């Protein structure tokens, strides 16, 4: 230990004062939010991920929010190169990554600069002074080191030379300086694990597995992890580091894992295809934040998944339509700009009535917009973004875990109703993680798709749900032609006749509206008919809305919550539920898109609460809006 940082702090008056005040012990907390922030090269996502794992194993409920830089590898030390990972965990149900962190780990000046504003007043900052040299300060836009001015006087600051500590801890492995410093994140993680009294073993195991072929790297990382932990034990009093106790959450019994929305979506699609007994064809073109689905699925070939990286989004959806035509379950995936390109082909799928799942991982728009930020501004596009009257079921996932069920549901509807289905998720859900009570596949209904074989029929003959027969090429005796031109209701041949077009339009509409017969009634999440006000949401705003409504109710407000998965068609009782309220608030990360649909469909005075900043809602923002509406 080189002592530098401590000396630094001793020099500054305000800091010393603060330190004395903050030497608490194993404080009991219901929930804590920690934010790890550092340079993109500092491994913050990994640190966050492992801390998440450890938190899950400790039985707390949790939610995370990884916040990547837009650049692949921004120059070191810059503010735009900061990578952060926030986790909120507690003994109560946790549904957001937390409005404001209690603890900020800042691995360099840029990380401090960009994340300080979010920190709770009085919150704890852990900073690596080893990175607060002149160069880094300048890159972050600091003229003086904030660790040495009174800029941080409203926070608790614990600053010391983590870099030096790390070097010291791995010295025996004879790594180069650069290589050795790579373990900084594990050192830090060790320290934080100590703060929350966590077991290091699972992480040690994980490191050993990860660096199976490079045992010296594994060993160095483990040494750093242990050293960080030890530092907490020894440095505790002097350094003012708190220790926190966060209890286990009350949880349904079962087998658990943590899952990100991205993983859960991929698994859900595989499960969905399996439940309808079809091989899956996945045609896609890379785009942030949708690409991880392509990556994950391309590793699951043994589950009957064929992945195809097409030349563009149009080819991607067209290939998926082709695969569905040939009898598989076609799936395509993109985000906003790519979905825009698929509009024409979606119309073809509507017209030819083929099953197809279209996943939209929404990001900030319009145009290229904010590729790495989250938003839910593609609802209009999902519902209305095609030429002609082209109705299509639309469903949206509310959380990482929920993406699994939604994916299964999308596959079911597509096949059962012979229709394209749009599945909405977003950048936030995709990257966020939460604990998941892993279901058994047997919990889900197995509804095998049927390819028609038998006597010749019109390719547009329909079942009682109005779904047309699915005849796949290769079936003897059933040769037929389909296409994007209007078809005769009876024969399936091209038909431009006025009455026929009306009938087919009505039929397509009735078929999609009929999907409502197969979905559960809408429930309230909290409260119900008697309340003074209703908050309605969809997608990833679930967490903050739920918490805000809970808090408002705790504060005595009679406010109910309702969260919609099936955005088209709506559950049949939705109108009835909504009409029971005079005050309806619709928080959305867009300029009011669901609001439009609710007002149109049910003529209720739904009022928008809009946030279009690329960031999820804070609980407090929604709470404030509830309070305002209640007057």
């Amino acid at each position, binding site marked *: 230990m080189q002592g530098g940082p401590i000396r630094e702090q001793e020099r500054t008056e305000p800091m010393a004062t603060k330190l004395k005040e903050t030497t608490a012990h194993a404080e009991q907390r219901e929930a804590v939010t920690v934010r790890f922030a550092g340079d993109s090269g500092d491994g913050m996502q990994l640190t966050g991920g492992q801390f998440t794992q450890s938190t899950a194993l400790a039985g707390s409920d949790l939610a995370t929010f990884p916040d990547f830089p837009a650049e692949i590898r921004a120059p070191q030390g810059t503010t735009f190169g900061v990578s952060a990972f926030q986790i909120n965990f507690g003994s109560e149900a946790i549904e957001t990554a937390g409005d404001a962190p209690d603890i900020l780990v800042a691995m360099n000046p840029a990380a401090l600069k960009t994340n300080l504003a979010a920190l709770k007043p009085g919150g704890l900052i852990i900073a690596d002074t080893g990175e607060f040299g002149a160069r880094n300060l300048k890159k972050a836009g600091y003229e003086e080191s904030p660790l040495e001015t009174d800029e941080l006087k409203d926070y608790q600051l614990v600053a010391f030379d983590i870099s030096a500590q790390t070097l010291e801890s791995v010295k025996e492995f004879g790594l180069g300086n650069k290589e050795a410093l790579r373990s900084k994140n594990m050192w830090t993680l060790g320290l934080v694990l100590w703060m929350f009294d966590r077991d290091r073993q699972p992480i040690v195991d994980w490191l050993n597995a990860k660096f199976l072929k490079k045992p010296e790297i594994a060993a160095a990382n483990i040494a750093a992890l242990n050293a960080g932990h030890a530092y907490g034990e020894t440095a505790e009093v002097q350094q003012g580091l708190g220790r926190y106790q966060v209890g286990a959450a009350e949880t349904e019994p079962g087998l658990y894992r943590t899952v990100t929305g991205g993983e859960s979506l991929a698994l859900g699609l595989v499960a969905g295809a399996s439940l309808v007994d079809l091989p899956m064809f996945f045609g896609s073109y890379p785009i942030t934040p949708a690409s991880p689905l392509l990556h994950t699925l391309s590793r699951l070939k043994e589950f009957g998944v064929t992945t195809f990286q097409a030349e563009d989004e149009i080819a991607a959806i067209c290939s998926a339509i082709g695969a569905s035509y040939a009898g598989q379950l076609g799936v395509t995936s993109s985000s906003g700009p790519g979905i825009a390109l698929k509009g024409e082909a979606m119309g073809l799928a509507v017209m030819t009535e083929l099953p197809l799942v279209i996943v939209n991982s929404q990001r900030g728009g319009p145009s290229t917009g904010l590729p790495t930020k989250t938003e839910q501004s593609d609802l209009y596009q999902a519902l209305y973004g095609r030429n002609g009257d082209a109705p299509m079921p639309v469903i949206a996932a509310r959380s990482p875990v929920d993406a699994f069920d939604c994916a299964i549901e999308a596959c079911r509807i597509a096949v059962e109703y012979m229709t394209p289905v749009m599945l909405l998720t977003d950048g936030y859900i995709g990257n966020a993680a939460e604990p998941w009570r892993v279901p058994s596949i047997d919990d889900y209904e197995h509804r095998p798709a049927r390819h028609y074989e038998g006597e010749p029929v019109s390719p547009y003959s329909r079942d009682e749900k109005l779904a047309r027969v699915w005849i796949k090429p290769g079936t003897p005796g059933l040769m037929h*032609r389909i296409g994007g031109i209007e078809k005769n209701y009876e024969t399936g041949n091209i038909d431009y006749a006025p009455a026929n077009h009306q009938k087919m339009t009505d039929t397509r509409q009735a078929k999609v509206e009929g999907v409502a017969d197969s979905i559960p009634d809408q429930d309230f999440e909290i409260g119900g008919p008697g309340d003074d006000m209703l908050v309605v949401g969809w997608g990833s705003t679930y967490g903050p809305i739920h918490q805000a409504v809970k808090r408002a109710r705790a504060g005595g407000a009679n406010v109910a919550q309702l969260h919609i998965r099936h955005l088209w068609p709506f559950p049949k009782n939705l109108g009835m539920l909504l009409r029971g309220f005079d005050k309806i608030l619709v928080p959305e990360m867009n300029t009011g898109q669901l609001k439009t649909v609710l007002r149109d469909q049910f003529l209720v005075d739904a009022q928008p609460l809009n946030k279009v900043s690329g960031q999820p809602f804070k609980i407090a923002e929604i709470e404030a809006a509830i309070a305002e509406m209640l007057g």
Partner: protein
Amino acid sequence: MNDMTPLKPNDFATDQEVRWCPGCGDYAILKGVQRTMAEMGARPENTVFISGIGCSSRFPYYMETYGFHTIHGRAPALATGVKLANPDLDVWIITGDGDGLSIGGNHMMHVLRRNLDCQILLFNNEIYGLTKGQYSPTSREGTRSPSTPYGSVDHPAEPGTFALGSGARFIARCIDTAQKQMPGILKRAHAHKGASFVELYQNCIVYNDDVFAGFTEKKQAPFTQLWLEHGQPMLFANGEKGIALDADTLSLKIVHVVDGDWEAAGVRVHDEKNRVMAGLLVAMRHNEGMPVALGVIYEDPAPSFEEDVRTQNVEAAKGKVVDLEALIKKGQTWEVNQKKLREV
């Protein structure tokens, strides 16, 4: 249909009224394809015609096989999905010069590059038929059309050259009315494993009548058409002329053959496998005094896309247990029992 009775060309015709303009070259191609199907003993249920949009793209409606009339330019993309989903199907892509080279140029390039096993029939009438006669990417410079009343100024694309540039491994050409040769060429295309690119010169009687007359006119045909055959000398004009190479400029030239001694005249033997020669042959222009190369110009097979994809899928799955339950339980898990925590 009885599996034992060989199908006749007419068995490949649907009950739909054919809706091209009377005299359109598409009729002849339809006839040629139906005849080819019969001669090949094609199984209708295993055959899929996939088209984009255009007069030509109406084609699938008239074939008693499976058919998909998709959207403008996207047939190759759709066909890729079909073929990857079911490699056993026999996939024919029908497209036009606008559908396949204007809006659909990119998919054309990529389906050729990837070498999907399919037959691509590009009906080249050097015009947009269906939308009433605008010039297309293959229209010659100066083409007057509703959208170019003063004549087009863009340099036309040469389909064969484009296909070669995109990595095509089979290039053939035929004329709508060349019914004698068409089945043979289409059968070769079909036999070729990988993407077969076949350009069909098709007369649009309404909007671009006789644009190919310069070399399709029957009487002049021996002098304006060079029908290629692998291993045979490149002769035309009833054997009195042949194609030779100027090795210095790397260009083709016409040489006169005296007394049938083509070797003496330096006439080259057609080598289907020679990509460079294929490039020279497709570039021969009738209006520059050269005959138009017809027949199978190039074939040099390589593994096909769907085959490689399938093989990889199978390889990757080998030895792996397909257990969905296990999949979703992968990674670090823990068990919560009776609402109490137990770490596993």
